[in-house]
């Protein structure tokens, strides 16, 4: 939906994911989105350089989230949300990863 604006379908997917899930880490994002790790890291780096996302270490994992201090966040979120609503149902499924707790040792 926003690819002509953002210049990258992967960047668009990453923004949807972070908007909906709150945060994500590169290997988890690669698994959820069915993409290779390197392009994800590359796009996250570009988004971070632009101040749109921030990252911090949680243990040994670098976790990314939308930057609450980004100057245009209040304008960006409604745009992302509206574009997301236009996605086909099948494409929306990848962003609906389980976020509720799950006790260790339980099988899926």
């Amino acid at each position, binding site marked *: 939906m926003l690819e002509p604006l953002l210049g990258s379908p992967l960047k668009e997917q990453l923004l949807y994911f972070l908007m909906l899930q709150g945060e994500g880490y590169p290997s988890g994002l690669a698994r959820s989105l069915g993409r290779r790790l390197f392009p994800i890291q590359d796009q996250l780096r570009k988004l971070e350089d632009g101040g749109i996302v921030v990252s911090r270490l949680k243990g040994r994992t670098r976790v990314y989230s939308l930057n*609450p201090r980004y*100057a245009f966040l209040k304008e960006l979120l409604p745009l992302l949300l509206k574009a997301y609503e236009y996605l086909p149902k099948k494409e929306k499924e990848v962003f609906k990863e389980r976020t509720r707790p799950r006790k260790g040792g339980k099988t899926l």
Partner: protein
Amino acid sequence: MAHHLLNNGIEVVLTGGACVSIYSHNRYASLDLDFVTMTTVHPRLMVAVLARGGFRKEGRVFVHPECPFAVDILAPPLSIGAEPVRKTATLTVRRMKMKLLTPTDSVKDRLAAYYYWNDLQALEQALLICRHQLVHLASVRRWSDAEGHLDKFREFRKTFMSDPKTRKR
């Protein structure tokens, strides 16, 4: 650094912890220099310009063998949260001028980290500025309200008022 960038057509404003160091007369020591560029600069151009000043890129930051500070160049716009920074302060060192956040905006900059990430060190830094500089609390309050963090501003204000060292009008 700021002078070198300006001579190459790149205007920057100093933000972050380095402003706290300056405004607290080094009661807080920052080893990061966070500069925000006023216009978008292509990364390759920035690397080339800073290389002429002896800086090389190491990860996300620029380092110099004779400079203890790590320099980070941040993308525009110059803002604190959703609020654009309209007025900056100027520091003159050896006839070289450098733009930086005003004390009031520097307090907002630190409080933003406290508001969004509950960073208590940033809250202490905001108070440290208030001990050494006059800060427009009404402006901080209005900004906090716009950012949706009036509750946390009230906590900050309570500490500010009870601290005998903070400068009050």
